[in-house]
Structures are given as structure tokens and as C-alpha cells.
């Protein structure tokens, strides 16, 4: 009996230790990558053609999915605040509620998660394929440092594209909220806009955009890290993409929490 409990305890301890070691390994890898990327960005070493290509691929191509997500996000927020609005018949507060929630929290989180799924996962898949087909080793053999050539442009492109997509998405979410507020709740455009413009400050928009910058940076780091450390063919690429989106979702939630405490 005692030996059974002892072995159970040991295996539990072993599992916990393994998990912590794995966490430290991934976190350490990401921190190293972050340092390298920042160093090469500060020194202005960033391939310009790769940057432009990635800006198109990450920013312009993601516009439809972000626009649709933002429209439905605005709709969901209107429906949810509509429950309160109808209970207290406070139709004048709908624009404030929807605008505040979308700008500060729901917009950056949902668009960030969508961006992580679309762009981050794609980035991991691309880098992972390059890693398993030894293209990254090939770059090193040609004395081309993969950080300024591959990673730094991607990080920069993700930050710029998520920032622009958030501005667009916020606008579409508010527009969608206005249209659906009129259709579902019968709130006039003018009263929605008046309560929106009166109560939502520029700072609320800024908080969301600052969050977006941090989200994009963490998505870029996690996706690049998992992409570069792929081992073992097609199976490895799939698993890396899966791990990368999970890690990106976790870092989005945690950094959202920290940023909410800092940016009041």
C-alpha cells in the first residue's frame, strides 16, 4: 500500500517536473528569439522585400475574415447589451455599452484570436515546412542569418497589420452594431451614434490598439518559435501549428489581463 502511494506520488512529481521543464524550455526559447528579433530590429536589419510581401500576405489577405468577425462581434455585443437595454428601457446607453466593450476588450481579443488562427498558424506552418525541408539550414549555410531575413520582417509585419486590422475591425464592429441595433432593437442610428460619441473616449480606442500591438508581438513570437523548432515531417508541422495557436491564445489572455490592470 505504502509503496503504491509512494510510486503514485513519484510519478505525479515526475509529471509535474517534466511539465515545468518543458514550460521553461519553451519560454526560454521565446525569450531568446525575442532578444534576437529586437536586436536586429533596433539595428535596422530587416529584409525590406520580405516585409512588404508579409504585409500583403498577413494584412491585406486577412481583411475579409477580420471584417466578418468584427461585424458579428458588434452584433453579439448589441444583443448582449440589448438584454439590459430592454430591461431598463435605456436605449440611449446602447452605443456606449457596445462601443466601450468592443473597443476595450472584445474587439482586440476576438480579432486577435482570429488573427492568431489565420496569420500565426500560417506563419508556424510556413516556417515549420522550411525547417523540416532544411531550408533554414540552407540559409545558414549561405551565411544568411534567418533572424533578420525571415523572423524580423514577420514580427514587424504582424504588428503593423494587426494594428491596421484593429482600426478597421473597430469601425466595422461599431457600424455593424448600429445596423443590427436598428434592425433588432429599433434604436435609431442618430441616438446610437450620439451615445457612442458622447461616452466613448479616444483613450478607449487607444487602449484597444495598444493591446493589439502587444497581442501581435506575442503571436509573432510564439508562432515563429514553434515554427522554427519543428521536428519530424508532416506530423511535426501539424503538431507545431496546434501548439502555436494554443500558446498564442494563452499569451493573449494573460497579456490582456496584465494590460487591463496597467491601462485604466
Amino acid at each position: 500500500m505504502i509503496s503504491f502511494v509512494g510510486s503514485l506520488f513519484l510519478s505525479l512529481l515526475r509529471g509535474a517536473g517534466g511539465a515545468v521543464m518543458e514550460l521553461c524550455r519553451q519560454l526560454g526559447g521565446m525569450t531568446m528569439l525575442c532578444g534576437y528579433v529586437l536586436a536586429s530590429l533596433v539595428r535596422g536589419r530587416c529584409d525590406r522585400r520580405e516585409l512588404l510581401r508579409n504585409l500583403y500576405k498577413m494584412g491585406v489577405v486577412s481583411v475579409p475574415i477580420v471584417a466578418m468577425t468584427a461585424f458579428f462581434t458588434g452584433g453579439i455585443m448589441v444583443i448582449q447589451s440589448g438584454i439590459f437595454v430592454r430591461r431598463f428601457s435605456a436605449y440611449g446607453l446602447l452605443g456606449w455599452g457596445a462601443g466601450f466593450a468592443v473597443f476595450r476588450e472584445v474587439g482586440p481579443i476576438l480579432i486577435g484570436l482570429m488573427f492568431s488562427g489565420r496569420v500565426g498558424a500560417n506563419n508556424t506552418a510556413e516556417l515549420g515546412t522550411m525547417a523540416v525541408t532544411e531550408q533554414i539550414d540552407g540559409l545558414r549555410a549561405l551565411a544568411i542569418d534567418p533572424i533578420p531575413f525571415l523572423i524580423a520582417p514577420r514580427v514587424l509585419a504582424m504588428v503593423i497589420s494587426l494594428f491596421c486590422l484593429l482600426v478597421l475591425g473597430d469601425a466595422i464592429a461599431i457600424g455593424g452594431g448600429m445596423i443590427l441595433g436598428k434592425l433588432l432593437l429599433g434604436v435609431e442610428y442618430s441616438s446610437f451614434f450620439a451615445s457612442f460619441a458622447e461616452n466613448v473616449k479616444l483613450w478607449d480606442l487607444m487602449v484597444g490598439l495598444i493591446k493589439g500591438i502587444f497581442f501581435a508581438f506575442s503571436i509573432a513570437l510564439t508562432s515563429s518559435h514553434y515554427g522554427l523548432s519543428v521536428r519530424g515531417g508532416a506530423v511535426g508541422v501539424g503538431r507545431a501549428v496546434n501548439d502555436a495557436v494554443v500558446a498564442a491564445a494563452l499569451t493573449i489572455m494573460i497579456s490582456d489581463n496584465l494590460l487591463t490592470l496597467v491601462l485604466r
Partner: protein
Amino acid sequence: MTAQGLVDGVTGFVRSLLELLGRFVLLAALLLRGAVRRRWAAGELWRQMYHVGNRSALFVMVTLGFIGMVLVFQTCLQINRVTGDLSQVGAEFAKILVHEFGPSLTAMMLATRVGAGIAAEVGSMVVTEQVDALAMCGVEPVEYLLAPRFTATLLMTGLLTVFGVAAALGMGALTAYQSFHVSPDVFFNFSKVQYGDLLTGGIKCLCYGGAIPLVSGFCGFATSGGSEGVGWATTRAVVASSFVVIVLDFLISGVAMFTLQAG
């Protein structure tokens, strides 16, 4: 572009869309038949339930816990600015968590965790021709591979939502106590949670739990071409299943608002 070219382009687009829709319906029908016939290996369902449920529980609880903290913090901050009466925050938070944020955010997390996993596994089986081998042995791959994952996700989404809601409530209560001095006795107040809220949340869980494996399995079976193809399929699965969750959330919330919470 000439008029003829435009017509050709439109018909080509419509045709490919219809083809996609047809394949999707076919897969859904095979999947449903498989889920009803339950012809999988003994213990396979338990294994998948472990993979979907136990392995995601920590992830879901951590993310939902952080979301709970943020939501309570923002709500209290806003209410402090207007009225300063924080006694109803807990009750309203529990209500909106049960019928909206709990199921939807859990499902968003599962779309990234489970959806990507299904697409990656099925996709790598497709490109290494294991799926073709299954079909050659007379086993229907959709039924054998996807049906147990479908049933497991359907069952586990509701359970994980319960855990996620519990984590969000706990962390929310902690935030309310820490930052705004709302005592947990006042915060834990379920008087506003009605049967309609529970029903809405339950229906959402069922729909998300069915949609995520269906959509990501479809993306996985449509994989073609090596490790790059697997990466593409996984990406597509994450985007499609997250988007389906958002659209379903919108639709179900809209219907619920007009039927259950009228008045």
C-alpha cells in the same frame, strides 16, 4: 474583362462553392451515421474523451480564469464611474457567463486546441496515405477516425464549459474582493440565472461541440500535398471553426433574445 469571362468566372465560383457544400454535407452525413452506429474500437471513445477533455481542462480553466478577472475588473471600473453600486455585479456576471461568455469563449479555446488537433492528425494521416489504406481495408475513414472525436467533443464541451465558468467565477470573485472590496458572499449570487440562461448556454455548448469537430475534420480530410498541406489544413481548421463559433453565437443569442428573454 469581357462579359463572357465574367460569366465564366461567376459560374466557376458557384460551381466550386456547390462542390464544397456537397462534400461538406456528405461528410456530415457519414459522420452522423458513424456516430449513431458507434463502430469504433473498444476504448477509443474514452481515449478521445481524455484527449479532448482532460488535456484541455487546464488550458480552458487558465484562459477563462483570466477572462473572468478582466471582465469583472472592467465592469466594476465602469459602474464605479456611474453609480458606485457594486452589489449586483456578481449576479449579472454569473448570468452573462452562463448564457454567453462561458460557452462561447470555451468553444473559441477548444476551436484552437481541439479543432487544430483534429485537423493536424487527420491531415497528416491523409498525406501519409494512411487514410487511403483504411479505405482499402474496407473501413470508412470518416466513421473510424472522425466519429469518435465528434462524439467525444460533443460530450466534453459542456463539461469543459462548466469548469471554465467555475474558473471565471472564482477569479472574478477574487478580483472583485481584491480591487473593489466586494465580499464573496455578495459576489456569488445566482438569483439572476434563469432556466432560459441555462438552456441557451446548453444549446450553445451542444452546437459548438458538434460544429468544431465537423468543420475541422472537413479541413483535415481536404488536406493535400506534404507537410505544407498539413500546415495549411490546420490553419484553415482554426479559422473556420473559430468563425463558425462566432456566427453560431450570434445566431443562437439572437434567437434566444427574441424567444426566452422577451420582456
